[in-house]
């Protein structure tokens, strides 16, 4: 099911949690809403589900305007952060609930419900646990029961709120891969909320980066990591450092001195670059500073460098240095970004 979100605005007591948000989700896509807490990502998910209603704007499911349809009428599968399983029901009763509460005209017969439940249990690899109660399951199992329960009603879209938030790192990784396979198998349009960028980049077809009630950028993992369109995206996704610079006559100046970079238009702004997009150099036109720390991070080595700032607090940047040539603490390091972007002030 294709979903179109048109100029949505949502206010809570005058506070705009979402401000003029538009997004098109193609049928069968796996979309991540990524952002820090308070960025409005969960609010957007709840608006799509119909658990909240927009102050302004419209939501379309295909060609149907669903903006004012109740949550019951939208037929969405929603998986809650803390699973929200019914603890007085067995796993099988939880999964079958959505079918059991249908009006008698569209309710499948008991044997049919039973078969559907057992198929779903197979699908989430929990066969044999149908008579357990939720408090007898592990976190990862509960998560999969919640997913099976949401899938039982044959939802038009699947919405997941921080689906792996409450799980430990190892289970989270397994479930992440499992969810991707699950999505590829079932082909449901899926939207999930996360604040974990690794999760979003690894899992989603497209990542929607949000901040302060607005969409900052929508794109593939490559797009948002390699071609960030705003200072927020640049600093929120991956590691980055930034320095105030000016551009005059096509040359980038830092503290009035050229640093060996060139840029088209004259401007003043912030120069952003990632630690891995930096080379150490001996040339005079370069950035330079004192190495204050050197950390080994798995397959890389990161140096922290302080650049003097005329008596003010020094600029702090991080650059990747070659593994085989560690820099000395306290030594002077000269470097130059190889990929960078300047955002106007």
């Amino acid at each position: 099911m294709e979903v179109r979100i048109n100029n949505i605005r949502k206010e809570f007591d005058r506070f705009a949690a979402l401000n003029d948000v538009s997004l098109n989700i193609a049928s069968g896509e796996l979309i991540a809403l990524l952002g820090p807490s308070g960025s409005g990502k969960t609010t957007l998910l709840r608006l799509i589900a119909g658990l909240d209603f927009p102050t302004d704007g419209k939501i379309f499911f295909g060609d149907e305007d669903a903006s004012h349809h109740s949550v019951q009428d939208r037929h969405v599968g929603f998986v809650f952060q803390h699973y929200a399983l019914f603890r007085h029901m067995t796993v099988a009763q939880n999964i079958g609930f959505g079918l059991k509460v249908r009006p008698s005209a569209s309710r499948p017969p008991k044997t049919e419900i039973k078969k559907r439940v057992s198929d779903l249990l197979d699908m989430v690899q929990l066969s044999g646990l149908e008579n357990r109660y939720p408090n007898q399951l592990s976190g990862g199992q509960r998560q999969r029961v919640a997913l099976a329960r949401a899938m039982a009603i044959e939802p038009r879209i699947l919405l997941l709120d921080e689906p792996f938030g409450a799980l430990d790192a190892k289970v989270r990784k397994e479930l992440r891969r499992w969810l991707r396979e699950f999505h590829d198998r079932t082909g449901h349009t899926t939207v999930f909320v996360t604040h974990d960028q690794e999760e979003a980049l690894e899992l989603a077809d497209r990542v929607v980066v949000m901040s302060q009630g607005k969409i900052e950028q929508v794109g593939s993992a490559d797009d948002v990591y390699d071609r960030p369109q705003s200072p927020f995206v640049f600093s929120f996704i991956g590691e980055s450092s930034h320095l105030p610079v000016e551009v005059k006559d096509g040359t980038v100046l830092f503290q009035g001195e050229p640093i060996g970079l060139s840029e088209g238009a004259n401007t003043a702004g912030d120069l952003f670059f990632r630690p891995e997009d930096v080379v150490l150099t001996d040339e005079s036109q370069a950035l330079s500073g004192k190495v204050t720390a050197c950390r080994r991070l798995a397959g890389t080595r990161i140096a922290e460098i302080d650049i003097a700032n005329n008596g003010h607090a020094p600029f702090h940047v991080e650059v990747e240095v070659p593994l085989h040539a560690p820099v000395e603490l306290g030594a002077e390091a000269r470097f130059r970004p190889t990929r960078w972007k300047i955002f106007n002030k």
Partner: protein
Amino acid sequence: MTASATASKAGWRVKQPSIIPGFGLTLGFSLAYLSLIILIPIAGLLWRTAELGWSGFFAILTDERTIRALYVSFGTAFAAALINVIFGTILAWVLTRYRFPGRRLIDAMVDLPFALPTAVAGIAFASLYAPNGWVGSLFMPFRIAFTPYGIVIALIFIGLPFVVRTVQPIMEEIDREVEEAAATLGANRFQTIFQVLLPGLTPAVLTGFALAFARGVGEYGSVIFIAGNIPYVSEIAPLLIVIRLEEFNYAGATAIATIMLLISFAMLLVINLIQAWSRRRYGNV
């Protein structure tokens, strides 16, 4: 599961392996305290009853007046507890779910039956529900006061806070997400309340019922004013005990008390077992 299994096993050992010190001291204190407050008085009760011998005991047990009094006591307490479960749960729902002016006042009023001398409540009810009272006159010719219905009304008053105060905290803990989950699955409000929310409250409701019921069985002060105390009709067992005492028939009084004790104990035991069962199913409540 494993935690509760080991805990129950540890309960059977004299020395439990907890690292918290003072087990011997606190257990000793608990036993001495329970002995002084509960066990010794009850032992005295049984001792006094034993003076009667089996035949005397059976004579009192099978006496028509005793049976009727026990029937009235347990019947009215059961009915009142049942009514309290329904309306107490609704009251708890209103107090936890809605914010309205005067909510705190109503919340405080719920506790009044705890504090008010029960005799005062009894007299107030008697004058209100009497055939010529404000409320009682409305229901004429159906008589409320001075019949078992009056007893039920007094016991509803006495037992209400027990239900509200046990259900309320559990209701406050219900996750909003659970209700929303039911809605996303297509359940309407009615189905959400009756199939999702209320079953989750079962253990708390049972506890409230047991407390209100036990309190109602033992209630004396408020009931004697509104009951009319007609033997075989609206005479409660505690009153019959007092009557026997006034006749200096101590063995007769303790015999009725012993019967009440046994029935109450059996009923509370059954309720406790149901609670333990539902707790095992639903997790800790």
